[in-house]
């Protein structure tokens, strides 16, 4: 079956503009994660959705970042008033149930460049 997909694959924007990044998880997966990866760095956790539970937003770096997951499937990560330090690859992952024993399946990421 289809894996996790993300769009767009690349996004170039100007400082101060808003951007929306989309993630389509694997069908039937109840948990979804967003991560950020700066060049040459590890993954930074941003937010976690599990079923109908309130999301764990503890990794969002500022109130300019928000995310939602509609209908328990597609998720969008929104960055308002983008800054140059927001430039990174944004990765989405989904798991069947959530929890530490579940394999995370990652999408290819969206490379965001803020000029």
């Amino acid at each position, binding site marked *: 079956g289809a894996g996790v997909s993300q769009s767009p694959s690349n996004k170039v924007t100007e400082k101060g503009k808003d951007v929306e990044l989309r993630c389509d998880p694997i069908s039937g997966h109840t948990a979804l994660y967003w991560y950020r990866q700066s060049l040459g760095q590890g993954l930074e956790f941003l937010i*976690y959705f599990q079923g109908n539970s309130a999301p*764990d937003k503890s990794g969002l770096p500022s109130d300019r970042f928000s995310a939602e997951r509609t209908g328990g499937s597609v998720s969008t990560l929104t960055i308002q008033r983008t800054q140059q330090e927001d430039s990174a690859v944004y*990765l989405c992952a989904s798991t069947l149930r959530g*929890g530490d024993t579940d*394999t995370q399946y990652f*999408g290819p990421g969206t490379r965001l460049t803020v000029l």
Partner: protein
Amino acid sequence: LAKTTQPISMDSYEGQEVNITCSHNNIATNDYITWYQQFPSQGPRFIIQGYKTKVTNEVASLFIPADRKSSTLSLPRVSLSDTAVYYCLVGGTTGGFKTIFGAGTRLFVKA
């Protein structure tokens, strides 16, 4: 949440066995240990997971001592295509699961 420590980079040659050790001194009772591999311009992908002792699959082995404060990923007979970043991940299910990927270990396999 258990913090992990790994070597920043390692070099190896084709055909050699590579062992990457991860330290996780404050691992909790419910925590599993998972390793992921990431190639450039791709998302990480699952390699292996374990709780204690030894786990082996078609790709790698994972050795976990009795105290579980560390774990070692073993890659047998590496090839050039094993050049990647390897992440050790320790997490638990405590009502919401926040995963922490460390900086990972950059493995360079040379011909």
